[in-house]
């Protein structure tokens, strides 16, 4: 019974992977919040308040993400920004992933869903987030971070921050 239940959970999580959830707070790739045991309470702290910008340069991430998207062998289109904003818990686990999309003029826009899903899959390969950070007397804090992909004619041309 336990095995069947676990299998059900696994399959349901696969089917939901990459799915967008529209809520009053925006469009999410993942609505759950994950806080590992031992992490501080979920205060809203931003990555820049704890010097937690992702520790790999934009140039390297750009090369890596372009290869990742190329491996999907899809022809993408559209220009603008796809931004994922999420929580990184004290162990470096990403959750609660909001997605925002705009055109080059920063007006709301939607890229093809498969492309956004591929970008999200790439985002989940980024696993070098800073962990076990401290603010004043608070240990093991969680923080909010974002990664924005700048797209030109379906190609990633920059990664922000």
């Amino acid at each position, binding site marked *: 019974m336990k095995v069947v239940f676990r299998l059900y959970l696994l399959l349901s999580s696969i089917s939901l992977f990459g799915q967008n959830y529209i809520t009053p707070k925006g469009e999410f790739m993942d609505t759950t919040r994950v806080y590992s045991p031992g992490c501080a309470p979920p205060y809203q702290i931003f990555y820049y308040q704890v010097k937690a910008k992702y520790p790999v340069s934009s140039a390297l991430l750009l090369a890596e993400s372009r290869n990742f998207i190329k491996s999907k062998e899809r022809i993408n289109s559209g220009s603008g*920004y796809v931004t994922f904003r999420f929580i990184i818990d004290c162990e470096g686990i990403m959750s609660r992933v909001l997605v925002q999309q705009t055109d080059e003029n*920063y007006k709301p826009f939607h890229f093809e869903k498969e492309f956004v899903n591929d970008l999200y899959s790439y985002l989940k390969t980024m696993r070098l987030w800073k962990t076990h950070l401290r603010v004043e007397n608070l240990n093991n804090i969680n923080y909010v971070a974002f990664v924005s992909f700048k797209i030109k004619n379906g190609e990633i041309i920059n990664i922000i921050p």
Partner: protein
Amino acid sequence: MGKLLILFLSILLIPTSSRSQQKIDCSSKFAQDSLLEVYSAKAWKFGYNHPDWEANWDSLISICPNIADAYQEKAIPYLKSGDYAKAFELEDKAVELDPKRWIAYRGFLHCIFTKNCEKALTDFQLAEQLVPNASVMDHTYSFFCGLAYLETGALEEAEKMFLKDIEQQKSRGKDNDIHFNSLLYLGIVQFEKRDYIEAERNLKECLIYYSQLPEANYFLGQLFKAIGNPDSDLHFKFAKQYFNQGYSMNEDNEVYVNYLRQISLVEIERQ
């Protein structure tokens, strides 16, 4: 202080009668500045990540919707959390109300925060017409145009802009130090143009001003590697050492975003 008191009393009196509401003259620079002073002080007590930050600026906008700074301030948390749609809607409003004051700043945001080079160049061209030879966020407009051209691969234009930026800095007084990042980027552009002699000269000059700058050491190391100079290893070693000691490009906004060609430890360790 007296000014603040008068303003405070006048705001207190607003709800008492509809007649007194008409007394705030939003077209008056004095009224705008006074209101801005009061609302800024209130807002910065919370900080821009507090929900009252936005409410505070909305209050000011409801009193005088023509104060450009209110929109620019309201945009800050959106910009810093990557919500470009909301951030630029507000920044655009600020520019519309006071282009002389805000267009160069928006150009800076396009250049540094969203890497939207075409828009950055357009804004700086207009800014140059409105306020010639000025600076924004510690640098001349030419510096940011240089970055925008470098980002798009227009190396000749980028070089011209960084040279102009340096000339502008020199023209402000012969005792003025040249900003090390101006020399860094000029050196990087020349390196990418394979003008190794000029690149070496400018990167070395940059290191005179700031010897611990990891990027200057890294790109000088790259340059030496390209021309077969064994000193390359020494500069990669310096780049790693200073990076690990926490030295960086020393730009105010690098805590939020990476600057163009800014390196990480991964690149240095790959050498």
